[in-house]
């Protein structure tokens, strides 16, 4: 579920342009100098149920294309 929520956040942010501080932006290479595309990368973390006293965490990522942000 965390993965779906994280991807959902990336897609919503790509459409709305309303980004959080923790989001990363990765420029996508394009031969066209007038086309500037970035990948917004959202990260989600959650803890797995404790088994035998071990606390384990998972980290998932979501991506979405954004245009003309530079």
């Amino acid at each position: 579920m965390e993965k779906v929520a994280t991807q959902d956040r990336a897609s919503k942010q790509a459409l709305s342009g309303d980004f959080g501080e923790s989001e990363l932006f990765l420029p996508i290479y394009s031969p066209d100098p007038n086309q500037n595309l970035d990948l917004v990368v959202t990260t989600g973390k959650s803890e797995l149920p404790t088994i035998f006293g071990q606390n384990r965490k998972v980290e998932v990522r979501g991506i979405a294309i954004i245009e003309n942000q530079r």
Partner: protein
Amino acid sequence: MKINLWHDQRGSASVEFVLLAIPLFIPLFLYMNAFSEVSDDQERLRTLARESVRAFVNSANDETAFEVARSVVSEGGQILGFENSDSEIQTDISCSTRPCISPDSRVVITLSIPARKVRVSAIEYVTPWA
């Protein structure tokens, strides 16, 4: 006092559980693990396909479009956990018209990982004003 082990029923349920349940549960766990991995791969590939086809149709011409789609698969694949996305993921792009970046052209990007038999597609249309 004599104990007749052959007729004593104590502990028989445990023995039956070990003999019957373990051979049933181990394949079930293996199957669930494999199913989980394939679903995870499909989910990640679906995201990659959707975003790469979006980047494709937003390009000005075919040359740029193919390059940008390839970049998204490569960069995005690494972010989503495919270590060798360039060699691991096969990309197939088909268009309803030539050149691909033409008004109302339908673009289908199919990504697959042959080794794991995972294959997904995403469809997008080029804007009518392209």
